[in-house]
């Protein structure tokens, strides 16, 4: 481990010329290799041990993480507040179902091969984002946020009313994804290491692959030229355009990209749900996504992932372990039920993170790591590091 710790030092210095936020992520960009392998192995081993409840919760977290990375590109890195994320998730979910399902007497579908449908759903979400760009390009900050809120209400209206495509209030069944050699469904049976792998287990691996791809792509965008351009647009739009950044094009582009992330998350979500219902894609879903990126840490892929895990797992943990029966304390006495407790804690977490952890959970992690590293190798750490610490 010590050689890994030392290996980290040199690359920390060039990063110090950049703004603090990207600096923090820089510290996380150098995962030590054995650690990464262990992490990956543990993640891959989960389906062999976890019961379906935890797998499902984990899958929701994975899909949320993909969506949150997209939102973080838009809101965290570029400073464009979007409350319409749930709409693009819906486009992805329903897009997949529409493209993959066969037509019957009531519902229309294109019956495309499912991998094509999956890709098509992502593209559809991107197109939806592009169609919104006349508005997205003209509005700033709060105005954009609330204008995008309109997308949710209009979107849900369409989902409820365009019954031949969406199935209306009752939604539609989701055809399972079929890749060559593997079907993401409970049948045909698949047993590995004596463990039967059902739909959730198989989807877990798909989710991990998608998440890894999504995170890798986002990091590429954020670390490279586009990322710097986006950050400049966030920090000072006029300065960005003076420096030659094509602001309008970048803003539209990042909106499309973020919608495609949401589309991916939505399509994956549809596969997990096995049934799409319009009820789900409401305003609270969008608000949850905003909470994820704030809690995790704005502007980085890792922050989005941490936030997504936190927000998805917290209510489940609380309901499961605050000793079951919500009514035992409740009747007449007006006690707080676990569900309510988890809502309140969730709200409090959002407030607390903003007040006490300006960098989100990711910022906290970075700071902790710096403290640990500082203890371990005091001499190799010059004073410079202190300035890098978030205030």
């Amino acid at each position, binding site marked *: 481990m010590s050689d890994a710790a030392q290996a980290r030092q040199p690359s920390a210095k060039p990063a110090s010329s950049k703004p603090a936020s990207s600096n923090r992520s820089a510290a996380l960009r150098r995962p030590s290799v054995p650690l990464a392998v262990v992490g990956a192995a543990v993640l891959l081993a989960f389906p062999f041990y976890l019961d379906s409840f935890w797998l499902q919760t984990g899958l929701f977290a994975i899909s949320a993480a993909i969506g949150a990375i997209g939102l973080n590109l838009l*809101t965290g890195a570029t*400073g464009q*507040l979007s409350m319409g994320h749930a709409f693009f998730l819906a486009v992805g979910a329903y897009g997949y179902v529409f493209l993959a399902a066969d037509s019957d007497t009531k519902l229309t579908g294109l019956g495309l091969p499912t991998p094509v449908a999956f890709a098509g759903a992502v593209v559809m979400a991107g197109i939806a984002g592009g169609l919104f760009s*006349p*508005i997205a390009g*003209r*509005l*700033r*900050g*709060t*105005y954009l*946020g*609330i*204008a995008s*809120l*309109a997308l949710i*209400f*209009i979107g849900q*209206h*369409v989902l*409820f*009313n*365009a019954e031949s495509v969406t199935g209306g209030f009752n939604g539609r069944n989701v055809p399972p994804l079929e890749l060559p050699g593997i079907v993401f469904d409970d049948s045909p049976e698949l047993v590995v290491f004596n463990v039967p792998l059902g739909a959730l287990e198989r989807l877990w691996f798909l989710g991990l692959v998608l998440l890894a791809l999504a995170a890798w792509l986002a990091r590429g965008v954020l670390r490279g030229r586009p990322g710097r351009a986006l950050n400049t647009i966030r920090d000072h*739009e*006029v*300065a960005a355009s*003076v420096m030659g950044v094509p602001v309008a094009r970048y803003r539209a582009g990042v909106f499309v990209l973020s919608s495609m992330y949401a589309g991916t998350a939505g399509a994956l979500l549809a596969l997990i749900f096995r049934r799409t219902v319009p009820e789900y894609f409401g*305003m609270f879903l969008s*608000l949850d996504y*905003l*909470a994820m990126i*704030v809690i995790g840490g*704005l502007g980085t892929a890792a922050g989005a992932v941490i936030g997504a895990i936190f927000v998805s797992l917290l209510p489940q943990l609380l309901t499961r372990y605050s000793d079951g029966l919500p009514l035992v304390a409740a009747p007449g006495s*007006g006690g*707080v*039920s676990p569900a*309510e407790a988890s*809502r*309140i804690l*969730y*709200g*409090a*977490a*959002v*407030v607390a993170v*903003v*007040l006490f952890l*300006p960098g989100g959970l990711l910022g906290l992690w970075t700071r902790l790591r710096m403290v640990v590293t500082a203890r371990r190798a005091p001499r190799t750490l010059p004073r410079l590091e202190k300035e890098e610490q978030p*205030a």
Partner: protein
Amino acid sequence: MTTFIELVVNGLSVGSVYALIALGFVIIFKATEVVNFAHASLLLVGGYVTAILHDDIGFLPALGAGIATAAVVGALVEFLVLRRATVENHAVLAIVTIGVDIMLTTELTRRIGTEVLTLGDPWQNGIYTIGGVSIAHTRIAALVTAAVLISAFLLAFRYTSWGVAMRAAAEDSETAALMGIRLSRVSLGAWAVAGALAAVAALFLTVFPTPGLDRSTSFAAMKAFPAAILGGLDSTTGALAGGLIIGLTESLVTGYQGDLAFMGRGIGEVAPFLVMLAVLLIRPAGLFGTRELTRV
């Protein structure tokens, strides 16, 4: 024709209530540049306190208590949460208010529980009928109260020292601070006023023809979002206009939804947002909002 007149009067009345909520929004935004997503829960606080007290102390004192509580809670949110936040990003501050909203709403809906609470208003289900057009007393009361409150506020905004301080702070907070205006007081006051207005709105959202206050009342506050944006987030006149436009749109579209069936059922709920988008496409800063000019 009578239906049309009824729908217009109802729309104006509901719109004036939306205007009250939107005005609170705008005041907070002007003073602190924060979009307050916790507005719905301030509304619920006011309504809840009024509802539980009116049996014991009578309607008007209960309403007063409700207004005062909502104002205090509003001020507390500013004092305990927003003032302590060190982030610059206004989007993040907006998200903090979402957190506050979740906490307050959960606690209040828990207290409300399965009840439908009445606010003990004096109008009950009375109705005026003039030439075939019938209008509920509560509608008239809402219209009058909102008109009085909004004009009082606009006057105060123009002529009192608080109003001047607030406008100065909105115009250029640094200069205002240099001129001796205490920004912290301005924003504290803004939150309190917004809370009080929300409590009044809560009253009119829960009286006849609505059965009473329950857990879903806070959804109505959502309508004030398009109202505030449509008028222009930094314009008090805009809040008034926006509220009325949204109220009218909603009432007319719902009233004639039979003729609008091609747009899908339940279009009345969506229409306000469609109007908002249309306005924003033409005027990105709303009807009366100031276009942001960037100085380098």
